[in-house]
């Protein structure tokens, strides 16, 4: 069969969802943010909820998420996305409200807001990207930075005496009675990405049930911050991150 005969809409198995805008994403090559943006957009398209989804962007690399997602979005102050989403959700109970935050935004400066939003059981979807580093500001230590990991502010490696320990915030979140679904996934292989998409979809579906906060951590890479190629970053993640941040469901009610 000629190639041109194959290229028909009915034969398309993977394509670009219309819920992603045309604007090229500013992320570095191989960035996990792009993958997860795409997955959220695909879920919104598949569920037919583009007109009833409101997202909240963080401060960090994904600050401009509203340029890429073709849904209504609010840009929150650093760490405050769960508070912003709380009000949007409570005042617009017919909407699917999600937050999107990185590890610095959510697990450091925004630790109080995420804990209390989850503890109140806000009917929102929380997407948490954990790449163990501050990407946008140039690769400084994050709360999730691993022991020994070299960053711009731990140039000799993270040392507990000096910098404290990696924060397993997802394990803390899972203990909060307000959460109904807490899971940790990754985005390094086609199979892992398909699982992550299923998790995001389940989280959005939970909004319809209104039984608590759904929380999806995606362990991701920061090739630029880690100073590795995208494929080596994935390998580094598998070898180092998964031990501290094992993938799988922590809670599913």
């Amino acid at each position, binding site marked *: 069969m000629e190639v041109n005969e194959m290229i028909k809409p009915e*034969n398309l198995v993977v394509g670009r969802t219309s819920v992603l805008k045309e604007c090229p994403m500013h992320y570095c090559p191989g960035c996990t943010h792009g993958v997860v943006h795409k997955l959220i957009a695909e879920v919104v398209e598949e569920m037919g909820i583009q007109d009833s989804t409101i997202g909240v962007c963080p401060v960090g690399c994904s600050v401009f998420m509203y340029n890429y997602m073709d849904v209504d979005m609010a840009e929150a102050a650093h760490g405050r996305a769960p508070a912003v989403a709380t009000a949007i959700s409570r005042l617009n109970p017919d909407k699917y409200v999600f937050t999107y935050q990185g590890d610095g935004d959510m697990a450091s400066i925004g630790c109080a807001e995420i804990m209390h939003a989850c503890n109140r059981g806000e009917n929102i979807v929380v997407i948490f990207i954990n790449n163990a580093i501050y990407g946008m500001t140039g690769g400084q230590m994050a709360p999730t930075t691993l022991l020994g990991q070299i960053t711009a502010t731990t140039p000799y490696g993270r040392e507990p005496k000096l910098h404290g320990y990696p924060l397993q915030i997802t394990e803390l979140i899972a203990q909060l009675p307000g959460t109904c679904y807490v899971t940790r996934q990754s985005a390094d292989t086609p199979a892992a990405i398909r699982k992550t998409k299923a998790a995001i979809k389940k989280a959005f579906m939970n909004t319809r049930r209104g039984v608590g906060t759904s929380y999806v951590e995606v362990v991701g890479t920061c090739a630029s911050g880690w100073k590795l190629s995208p494929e080596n970053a994935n390998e580094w993640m598998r070898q180092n991150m998964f031990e501290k941040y094992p993938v799988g469901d922590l809670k599913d009610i």
Partner: protein
Amino acid sequence: MAKFIGTVVVDKDRCKGCNLCVVACPLKVLELSVGVNVKGYHYAEMKSPDSCIGCGSCGVVCPDAVLSVYRVKAE
């Protein structure tokens, strides 16, 4: 079991040459181009199109959603 053939269409000027699709392809169909696109990246292209089964793995891992994967049943 039915066999499939597939093909990948690359929106080459949006490709950032991260190489993740090349790694993800189980049949080593893709590689990065020798030349560069308008952004200066070596973009993904099909090195051995005949091997493609349209599994979609490359498209799934692409962070910039620049790959479209088509698949048909082999005659």
